[in-house]
């Protein structure tokens, strides 16, 4: 068996063992199997990565669906992109598994949790390893399922269940778009294999309408999975799941599937400039929206969730300007620091006895030193302050955006400031100032166990140094990642070089931009410092917001809007169809036929009067009618 096959298989085995034997296998063994398989998988990936010769290869497992000329095979593709993502998934995945052993220790669904996590890793690996759009789709839907299962993990709470369903259904909306795109691809290219499709697509002209539709529909899929406007509202709600889930699925890996998919299809997107424009602007809008909502949230995980939405928007903005490598790079760094932040938040929640409202926290840096430190690193990283990871990736995106459109860049930078502000707001409110919780909570405050802090430290390290994987030349770096990924974009560069051509910016401009964005981040930091440290402001309580703040606190009422525009009408339609169309129209018509016959029968019966005279009269009339009808020819001549 090939090593490649082993990579997804290991977590699957873990899932099967834990899934079938849950409640029977002891917890320690569950943790060992759950984390062990992923670690082993990571080892395999690492081995492959180290032995990778730069030549992509496709490995077929078996023919899955064969109908006529349509052949969907189960096959895996090993190339730079899949390797990068496999590394992130199994690497961050391993750490989060490890973290979960500690975090979920007291949960009765421990085995179930690990089974689901392993299943998620399996599907996520399928997603990035599949060599065609359909295998990608298997993973795509599979991770959606795991996300559903894990958001609703604590199934006693009906709200969590609703959140889980919302996530699944919104993803499904996107999936429909994706599926239609697959049909379009099949119709036009006769295959869904990446290699086949791209080979044929390379011969097409930019602006081709088919490609436009394909890319737009694929992007609809990405909207759902990667929580872009308008399909983003599920992600903040998805925080109902256990925190490691938020870290792994809803920050580090699954939500970046859309970015993966677009990077994978970079050739198609490059051929569709219109779509790219759409992607860019939607990304930007999402980034701004997410960041702005993040400003006033009080739930620690919600803030991080909106931050994720915002960062994903950033990545799409990057994709929109054909900055594929920076987007992928940002996926990586984001995986590090966002996972770190979530896990840190988890550690805080753990310590606070499941308290998530930052208004009830404060001054935790003494009680949770490791958590604080690592969280701090994460915050700096996301805020885009050098030399931490976020700075490099974000800056590179902004650089490309600047090239592309100055307005976009301006908004992007503004968003960056907001990011810095709300992240530091979070940091300050949680770890500085005085403790605002109950006595009982204060009494229980404690640093998390080693299984939890170890991953935090590892991720903190990565967040700190992650940026150095791709240091731009202007800072004297070797742009290693860019070089590594370069072969992926060769074809796209070939068909439309202008999309990639960077007007050689002077180094000084480049540096100026960098300094500008750092400065903006610092402004955000400073503002947060002034408000929350100097003035010791604490966000107001529920229902006391005013004006714009209130609108933003309530997430611009988008959920309510969707409820009013989609959910209620569909529910009303359901009742209408059922009660009115089905019962009153169709069924009444059907029953009406029966009733009509019955009624007719009643009338016909009346003819049977029982009077002999009438009967004979009817006979005579009948004969007369027969005569008249038959002999009308004779009578009329």
């Amino acid at each position: 068996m090939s090593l490649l096959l082993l990579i997804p298989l290991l977590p699957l085995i873990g899932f099967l063992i834990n899934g079938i034997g849950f409640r029977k296998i002891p917890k320690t063994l569950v943790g060992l199997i759950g984390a062990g398989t992923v670690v082993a998988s990571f080892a395999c990936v690492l081995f492959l990565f180290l032995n990778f010769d730069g030549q992509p290869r496709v490995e077929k497992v078996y023919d899955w669906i064969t109908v006529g000329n349509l052949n969907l095979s189960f096959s895996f593709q090993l190339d730079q992109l899949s390797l990068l993502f496999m590394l992130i998934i199994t690497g961050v995945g391993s750490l989060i598994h490890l973290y979960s052993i500690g975090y979920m220790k007291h949960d009765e669904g421990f085995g179930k949790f690990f089974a689901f996590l392993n299943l998620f890793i399996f599907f996520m690996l399928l997603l990035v390893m599949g060599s065609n759009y359909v295998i990608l789709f298997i993973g795509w839907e599979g991770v959606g399922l795991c996300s559903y299962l894990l958001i609703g993990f604590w199934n006693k709470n009906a709200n969590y269940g609703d959140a889980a369903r919302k996530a699944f259904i919104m993803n499904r909306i996107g999936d429909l778009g994706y599926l239609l795109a697959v049909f379009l691809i099949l119709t036009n290219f006769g295959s869904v294999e990446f290699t086949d499709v791209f080979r044929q697509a390379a011969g097409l002209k930019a602006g081709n309408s088919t490609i436009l539709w394909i890319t737009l529909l694929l992007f609809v899929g990405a909207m759902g999975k990667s929580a872009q406007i308008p399909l983003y509202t599920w992600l903040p709600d998805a925080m109902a799941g256990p925190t490691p889930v938020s870290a792994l699925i809803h920050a580090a890996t699954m939500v970046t599937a859309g970015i993966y998919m677009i990077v994978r299809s970079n050739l198609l997107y490059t051929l569709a400039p219109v779509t790219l424009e759409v992607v860019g602007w939607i990304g930007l809008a999402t980034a701004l929206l997410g960041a702005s909502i993040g400003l006033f949230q009080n739930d620690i995980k919600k803030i991080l969730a909106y931050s994720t939405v915002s960062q994903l928007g950033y990545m799409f903005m990057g994709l929109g300007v054909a900055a594929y490598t920076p987007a992928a790079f940002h996926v990586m760094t984001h995986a590090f620091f966002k996972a770190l932040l979530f896990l840190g938040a988890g550690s805080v929640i753990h310590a606070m006895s499941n308290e998530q409202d930052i208004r009830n926290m404060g001054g935790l840096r003494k009680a949770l030193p490791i958590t604080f430190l690592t969280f701090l690193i994460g915050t700096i990283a996301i805020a885009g302050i050098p030399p931490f990871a976020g700075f490099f990736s974000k800056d590179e995106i902004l650089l490309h955006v600047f090239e592309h459109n100055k307005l976009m860049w301006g908004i992007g930078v503004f968003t960056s400031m907001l990011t810095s502000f709300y992240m530091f707001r979070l940091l300050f409110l949680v770890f500085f100032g005085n403790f605002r919780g109950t006595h009982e909570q204060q009494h229980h405050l404690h640093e998390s166990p080693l299984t939890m802090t170890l991953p935090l430290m590892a991720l903190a390290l990565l967040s700190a140094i992650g940026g150095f994987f791709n240091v731009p030349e202007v800072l004297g770096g070797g742009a290693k990642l860019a070089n590594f990924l370069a072969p992926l974009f060769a074809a796209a560069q070939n068909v439309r070089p202008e999309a990639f051509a960077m007007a050689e910016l002077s180094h000084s401009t480049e540096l100026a931009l960098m300094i500008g964005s750092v400065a903006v981040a610092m402004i955000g930091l400073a503002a947060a410092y002034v408000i929350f440290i100097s003035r010791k402001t604490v966000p107001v309580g529920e229902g006391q917001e005013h004006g714009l703040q209130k609108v933003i606190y309530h997430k611009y009422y988008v959920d309510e809007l969707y409820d009013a525009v989609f959910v209620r009408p569909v529910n009303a339609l359901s009742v209408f169809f059922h009660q009115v169309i089905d019962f009153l129209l169709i069924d009444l018509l059907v029953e009406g036929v029966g009733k009509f016959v019955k009624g007719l029968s009643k009338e016909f019966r009346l003819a049977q009067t029982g009077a002999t005279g009438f009967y004979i009269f009817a006979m005579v009339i009948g004969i007369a009618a027969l005569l008249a009808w038959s002999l009308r020819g004779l009578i009329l001549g």
Partner: protein
Amino acid sequence: MLTLILILLPLVAGLVVLGLQGRVIKRVALLAALIELALAVYIFYAFRPDASSQFSLRYDWIGSLGISFSIGIDGISLLLVVLSTLLVPLIILSTFNHSYRNPSVFYALILAMQSALVGVFTAKDAFLFYLFFEAALIPVYFIAALWGGENRIRVTFKFFIYTFFGSIFMFLGLVYLYFQTPGGHTSDLAAFYALQLSAEQQNYLFWALFVAFAIKMPVFPFHTWQPDTYVESPTPATMLLAGIMLKMGTYGLIRIVLPIVPLGVERWGTTALVLSVIGIVYGSIIAIQQRDMKRLIAYSSFAHVGLMAAGILSQTLDGLQGSLIQMLTHGINVVGLFFIVDIIFSRTNSRELDRLGGITQNTPNLTVYFIILMLGSVALPLTNGFVGEFLLLRGVYEYNTWLGAVAGLTIILSAVYLLRMVQKSMFGVRTALTEHVTDLNLSEKLVLLPLAIMVFAIGLNPNAFLRLTEPAVAQLLQSMVK
């Protein structure tokens, strides 16, 4: 010969069962169904994957009229034979925790039903087909009407009359076709296929034949008998109806409508397809707000079958293959779901979603099976539902892009209503009814396990089935171009 045994075995077993008493009845019935399954499995493996009809048998039944007792199995038949022989033992097994009045009659009727179903799926003579088609109606009507719920008499009678109404027009159409055959007339389906009918004839015939199958499936707007009947019938009857019987409709479309009246399909296919697609969306939307689990699944079944019909009417290889695999899939999933509803009902005496909740806390096994079957129904990749829906949607999409897109809404809507059902019944806070629900017992597991295995077996290796049906389907489509 083997085919004849397949048809007669359940009938004979049914007669034997009629004479038995006590606990042995269930076992004999189950045994007969299992033997039948074993035979079907043998055929499955002995079957050569080509377009020919195998295990054929021909006996001049009404020689003077050219009506023969002609049966045989080709790929399309095989799939449905496998479906019926697989489901019937499970349906019988699913009744092991119930005790029905007059058990001997009950099981005899189930076995008789199987006999008729296998007959429908293997008949190669038009009138024989019609005969079995009608004959299948009687046992299930009686099962539903004798052991059903409160309104059973009215509801099942409506069902009976309605379906009879549909099939009698098919009968008329078949008689007409019979008189179009050259010479001394014959009702061999093969002879019907060879007819060269004018477009006008085919237009009429299309509706005469289509309505019968449309009611059976049912296709919008011929569906109003269905939810009531499913709800009022005892669960085994519901399983038979939804799991196997409605496939008689889709099978009929493939076997009768497409090859005999291709020009009629060309003229009216789009209309019928639009109706089917309306049914998908319409049924799904109605399902969203249902409170009764059985009714919910009934509407979901209605929606799913619309997709199958649409796939068949798309006259594409993908659509037909998809609908075939979906027939198998839908049978498995819907039987499983109905059984789970039955299990819940047997524990809580309720199917009202509003009154249930939190069942999973007592029943990990049930939850797992429920979720597996639910996932199959929402067509998650690697489950059986995905294969069918993917091919079906692609078939419809090839036929018409917009119809394909609208039909695709099923992907979203099915998730909406099925997740709601799972959520409201299994998750959340326990209610007074669900406080003491017990988990699956052995016989229940024995029913659900094969179903769950099939969910993944088909999902992972659909080619095992697609391979069998493809030659026959390809030939059928070939013949339509004549």
